[in-house]
């Protein structure tokens, strides 16, 4: 305890001495860590963060739904379902490969050009792009979880007379979800900061607000403020993920197999 505290102190001291002792430190401190600018820009950035939270909420719901559908399609058996399986596989391949930024540009600027829809705000298209990309990842997580459920479980459920749908809903998916909870939460943490990318479409979220404030004050501190806010946003989920993972490991160690 004492050793770790002491070692942390020494380490922090050395780090501070190295950074603060650098020749350009005064300039960097002024440009990036100005308390007055931080305080002045905070309300606007917080307002922007509210938009990020909205996008996050809708995207999370959308991702779970789309990913479940894709994962279910990929686990269908039988030659009849080949087109659906292939489509789902193609989807995950494509959207796991394309950078999120490019999907944002294509969806944000391309799809409105089709003029199928009335004009929608940039945040809407940003949410769609995030759902498209993250669903591909999360679908693979779900699929791994579904395939990790022992085949005998499916057999036992069908033997009781449960339909395919009932077996999926009541038996397979609940167990799959439990298996993949830590992985899912990890993806959620990643998504929490990627919602900041919708700013490239012009949506005034926390990042965009910080950019505007930066231009206004001619000082980069608002970016640091926005960054810290994103960390604060993610921190509870990160801690929760660690806690859940640790608990599941403990459960496994306890030997709670069927």
């Amino acid at each position: 305890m004492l050793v770790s505290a002491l070692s942390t102190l020494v380490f922090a001291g050395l780090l501070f001495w190295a950074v603060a002792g650098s020749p350009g430190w005064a300039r960097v401190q002024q440009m990036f860590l100005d308390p007055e600018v931080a305080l002045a820009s905070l309300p606007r950035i917080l307002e922007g963060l509210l938009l990020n939270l909205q996008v996050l909420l809708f995207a999370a719901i959308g991702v779970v739904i789309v990913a479940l559908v894709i994962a279910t399609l990929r686990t269908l058996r039988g030659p009849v379902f080949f087109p659906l399986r292939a489509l789902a596989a193609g989807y995950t391949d494509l959207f796991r490969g394309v950078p999120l930024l490019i999907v944002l540009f294509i969806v944000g600027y391309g799809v409105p050009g089709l003029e199928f829809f009335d004009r929608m705000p940039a945040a809407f298209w940003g949410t769609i792009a995030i759902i498209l990309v993250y669903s591909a990842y999360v679908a693979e997580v779900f699929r791994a979880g579904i395939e990790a459920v022992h085949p005998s479980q499916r057999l036992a459920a069908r033997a009781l007379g449960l339909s395919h749908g009932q077996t999926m809903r009541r038996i397979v998916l609940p167990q799959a979800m439990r298996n993949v909870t830590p992985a899912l939460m990890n993806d959620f943490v990643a998504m929490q900061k990627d919602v900041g990318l919708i700013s490239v479409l012009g949506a005034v979220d926390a990042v965009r607000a910080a950019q505007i404030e930066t231009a206004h004050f001619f000082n980069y501190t608002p970016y640091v403020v926005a960054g810290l806010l994103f960390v604060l946003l993610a921190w509870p989920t990160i801690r929760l993920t660690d806690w859940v993972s640790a608990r599941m490991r403990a459960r496994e160690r306890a030997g709670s197999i069927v």
Partner: protein
Amino acid sequence: MSDRLLELRGIRRSFGDHHVLRGVDLDVDAHEVVALIGASGSGKSTLLRTVNLLEPIDDGIIRLAGDDISDPRVDADGVRARIGAVFQHYNLFPHLRVLENVTLAARLVHRMPRAEADRRGRELLASIGLDGFAGAYPDRLSGGQQQRVAIVRAILTDPQLLLLDEVTSALDPELVGEVLALVRALADGGTTILMATHEMAFAREVADRVVFLDGGVVVEEGPAAQVLADPQEPRTREFLSRLL
């Protein structure tokens, strides 16, 4: 003939070049207990799974109480709801409590009101001395207790036929007895049972008839005492002698 419950005629099933079932004929009368014996890979499990339509057949006819259930137009879920089945292991659903496991099919498939299903479930759990575990998750139970719960789950909805596929073969030896005692009690109570088993002593004691399966066909069948004590076919003799 009127009490013929299950009738299998010419059942064939192959996986690629591997012919697991090569034309199996088998009858089970109501209230009869039939034991399927044979080496591992002789097709016992596959045959049991064809009966509740978990395994498609390439050829043959299956009749349950006179209904042709091998007709592809038949409602497979409906057929399975009339047949109870217990497998070697992983029968119970680990995310559901013991009572929920036992009542799941009654509630979802048979549309039994929850109160009634729970009442029946508790009764059955009490009959096997496990009512204290109704609210527990299956991982709290021993392997033998889990198999007994799986068996009462299978009979809660009064199926016409109970299929048991090596229900004791994944258990530690000291847990086998309690499971066999439950099967014996069901047999004495008149439940129609078709079971695959490695427990020859148990088959002789409980089964009315023993069917020896080898190479995907029925080689010999007859009263349990006769087939096990005085087998007529050389292959049956060879199989039984290897067990001693």
